[in-house]
């Protein structure tokens, strides 16, 4: 149906795509036990851009997002069919190490989840386990600056990450993610627990981060997607509650001239 019309991958070979795109999903189907959560997702994510995944609750946004760094592997009943191509290789191929995938594709979660450790250790730990050999102080400082948190915490790096405010904690989590120097950062509703000011700070930060990173963000906030995302993908559920991709394109087009009626209904608030 309309998917093929709105996706931009039609007719291209995966090898050719992978050179151009940061990451691509190809015929992705995900199951939780017998429940078919999402079906037939084909999605190419542009490099150094922000891509937003939007859609009504339960349509599988998080499921798709987590499929990009094999986070669903941690859910025992989850099963993934299809391919996710990253640098031309399927990250679900049997010889691929999920740990390596997650190192290259970092994740920031809905609820800020700093480790119960010092601010410094929160950032240093990820680098340490990834065999970072350079100057740790520099890396911590650089990551905190990258996450626009340095000025606020530079005098209390030894304090617990829990001592920060919610917005600061979320930026700490972003700093933690970029300290591992991934290619892509996945963010699952990173601002849903934050107030508008903190939200705007994170959004600014995301814009800055696109200089070095590709960002995929799940959001419920239409304005946020319109404000911050270069591309937007709209998901829906069908009658059997299976999620699928309805429309994908530049945010400007999705929010001003949606091709699909359902997209229009959703962004104008008529349902969802």
């Amino acid at each position, binding site marked *: 149906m309309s998917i093929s019309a709105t996706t931009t991958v039609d007719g291209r070979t995966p090898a050719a795509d992978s050179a151009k795109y940061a990451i691509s999903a190809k015929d992705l189907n995900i199951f939780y036990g017998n429940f078919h959560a999402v079906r037939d997702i084909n999605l190419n994510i542009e490099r150094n851009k922000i891509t937003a995944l939007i859609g009504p609750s339960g349509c599988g946004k998080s499921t798709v997002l987590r499929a990009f*760094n094999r*986070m669903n592997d*941690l859910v*025992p009943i989850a099963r993934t069919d299809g391919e996710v191509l990253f640098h031309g290789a399927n990250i679900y191929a049997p010889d691929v190490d999920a*740990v*390596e*995938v*997650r*190192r*290259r594709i*970092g*994740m*920031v*979660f809905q*609820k800020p*989840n*700093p*480790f*119960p450790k010092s601010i410094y250790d929160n950032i240093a*730990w*990820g680098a340490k*386990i*990834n065999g970072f050999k350079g100057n740790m102080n520099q890396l911590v400082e650089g990551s905190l600056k990258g996450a626009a948190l340095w000025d606020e915490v530079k005098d209390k790096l030894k304090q617990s990450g829990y001592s920060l405010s919610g917005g600061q904690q979320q930026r700490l*989590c972003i700093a*933690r*993610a970029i300290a*591992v120097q991934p290619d892509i950062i996945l963010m699952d509703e990173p601002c849903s627990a934050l107030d508008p000011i903190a939200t705007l700070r994170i959004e600014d930060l995301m814009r800055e981060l696109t200089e070095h990173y590709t960002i995929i963000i799940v959001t419920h906030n239409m304005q946020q997607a319109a404000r911050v995302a270069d591309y937007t993908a709209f998901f829906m559920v069908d009658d059997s509650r299976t999620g699928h991709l309805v429309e994908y394109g530049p945010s400007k087009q999705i929010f001003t001239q949606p091709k699909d009626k359902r997209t229009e209904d959703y962004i104008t608030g008529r349902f969802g």
Partner: protein
Amino acid sequence: MENKRAVAAYINYYLNNVTGSIEDIGYFSASADAQQESFTTWERATGLTQSTAENLYPATGDIVVSGSSTVAPISRQMAENFQAAGGYTGNITVESIGTEAGFKKFCVDRSVDVVDASIAIPEVYSAACINAAMSPVTFQIGTDALPLVVSTKNTFVEALTTEQVQRIFTKATTWNEVDQAWPADKIFRFIPGAESGTLDFFIEEVFGTNLYEQPVEVMNEILAANLSAGRMRALEAEKPMATRSQEEIGKILQTEVVKPKVVQTWGLFESIFRRNEVLAEAATLPAGTDLVFKSWLNWNFLTSPQSSNPLQAGINTAIWGSLWVTIIAFLVAVPIGVMAAIYLEEYSDGKGRVNRIIETNINNLAGVPSIIYGMLGLAVFVRFLGEITSGVAFGVTDPATANGRTILSAGLTLGILILPLIIINSREALRAVPRAIREGAYGLGATRWQTTWSHVLPNALPGIMTGIILSVSRAFGETAPLIVVGVSTFIVVRPDSMFSKYTTLPAQIYQWTSRPQPEFQNLAAAAILALLLLLLALNATAILVRNHYAKRV
């Protein structure tokens, strides 16, 4: 009733005339104050004065005087004079049976009229008297003294401290050992015979009343005087007397010479709230019995080994056995249990058949009665692995323990017993670690082990440690399985390796409670308190350690 007047008359005569005779017999008169007090006491007790004392005469009725052999000579003299003085017709008997026996006859048997005493009335007898509605009055008739004499040829000793006297009569052989300034001449001591009460008095004054606090030399002398030469040789062969400490010799003295025996006991409640009745009852016991208000839970109890004499029995060997067994159970169960919990929670997907069987079994095992573990331990560790658990396989050859009933078997059995508890508690603690923490770590490219080690385990540690504390306390207090795997109940040597025979505190308590004598019941009660205190101390320490860790996370 006639006899009462006679007694009053006799005492009045005694008080009035004793000063004249007492020095002839060899004692000193009481001080003027004491004499005055005696008269006042007499007047108050009889309601008469010296001038109306004449009203007591003529007096009749027999008088029985009994008690101290020290006082008897003067009492006899006084009785004789009293009878000769006229005004009294009757018979006065003066028995010399010892002060305490005299008091007993007076307060308990109520068969004598006057007690000759060389000490103040002991509490036991004053209580017995009060119980019998008697209020004895005391008259001091004189004092005696014990001189310490130095030869006239000795020119340097002028004054001695108690400490110097102690040295002269114990360690010192020459005078300069007592005081550097004195010559190195040999000390010649002349002391009364060992049977003499004078010596007792001297020792008591100089060295204190407690037999076991006496210098080693004194105790050695007492031992030599009371034990056969053969027994002394045997003790010497065990460990030379010269190398034994004061405490050790005191113990020997107690077990070999004093041999205290419990004839009757009263409980805590009676000892505190009905003390007078206890004292009265104690007074009716045969002479030579001491009433001791004793806390069964004392330092000696904690440091002495098991003994068949309840007065010497302690729980030292049991404490050591319990600690050994518990530590082995801990070393076996904690690493395996925690690792198993980590595997089941963090690694196993819970889907495989084997995993499911393991999980079901662990949950079931936690509910199996402990005696069943005893059977398992008996079959596996004691019998099947007997070679290993008795240490034969490692070259330990102690025929007494070679049958596998060792600390190791017990520790392994209890280890298996608490293993499911530790696994279940640890899994609970691991499960309580928020998902977000795991996902945060995985999202950074951490492996399972890195995530588990750096984040899950530290977060679960307080919970895991709580589980361990509970489980280890359980092992510490477990009795039934140990009885099956062969805990000994009578162990007098402290276990020194995991291949030793052993007893544990609960087993010891069990054994004592099954004895009919009340002393053992008291011992059991004390041991239960000790067990509780020990558990409390262990748990408190563990909780402090746990909180320390919880704060660091």
